[in-house]
């Protein structure tokens, strides 16, 4: 079973968690926001093949929300961080992952 590291409880089985969608999406004030921008806020997500910053909730544990960077192909959790912390540099994390993989391949 995949283990997800809750910032409060530590590594826990994935079925205790709920994915709560992409993180760092700020709600615009409806006044002065065009319909297109409002629609984008509501419905458009980055949906990358690779790293994504997401909100997660340890619903069957401490019940708190936190953020995590996850790889959408391998399901690997690269890092977790508190709500309110700045969005990690996904490109830098992806480069780290690639370098790590290359090192493992070379050591094989």
């Amino acid at each position, binding site marked *: 079973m995949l283990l997800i590291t809750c910032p*409060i409880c530590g590594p826990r089985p994935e079925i205790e968690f709920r994915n709560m969608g992409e993180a760092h999406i700020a709600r615009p004030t409806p006044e002065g926001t065009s319909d297109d921008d409002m629609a984008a806020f509501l419905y458009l997500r980055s949906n990358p093949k690779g790293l994504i910053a997401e909100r997660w909730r340890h619903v069957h544990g401490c*019940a708190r929300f936190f953020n995590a960077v996850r790889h959408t192909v391998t399901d690997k959790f690269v890092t977790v961080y508190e709500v309110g912390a700045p969005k990690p540099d996904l490109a830098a994390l992806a480069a780290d992952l690639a370098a790590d993989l290359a090192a493992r391949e070379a050591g094989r």
Partner: protein
Amino acid sequence: MTPEIKRVGAFEGLPAFPATSRVKAVPTGPLARILFRGSPAAAASVSAVFGAPLSTVPMRAGEAGGRAALWLGPDEWLLIGRDGEGEAILAAIAGAVAEPHSAVDVGHRNTGLVLSGARAVDVLNAGCPLDLHPSAFPIGMCTRTLLGKAEIVLWRQAADRFHIEGWRSFAPYLLGFLAEAAREYA
């Protein structure tokens, strides 16, 4: 004629748990249960009047004088006392905490049982995905988690004794699940 109101335990009338020398499940019977939410400072005030300390260390239970305070989240504790103590505990909290907080009597929502015996861990792990080795889940540790499809609060009271809190309507499911798992150790 005045209608009679009868108190019925959540586990009453259910098939008996197949108790063996290696594992048994015994309902706790009625208990006072308060769900408290507030800041760590408020929790410290509650500790003083409740008796059992509200831990600020995650996933730890504090116990004293027949009462227990189970950490559920950074601002959330389950307070357990003897049956009938609920109102007194609520009044004590209201008198001790001035800042905004929440204290709700969930004594009738929850129900509990104690699973014990040499095979208690194996029976639990039939439906609970946590690592219950003493190094990962020591005595005094407590947490919300899952048993099969039901959410529970699990508290290790001794090496081979666990207090399980579930929601009342899940009582048949919880007991049935544990009984099914225990058949392997009959």
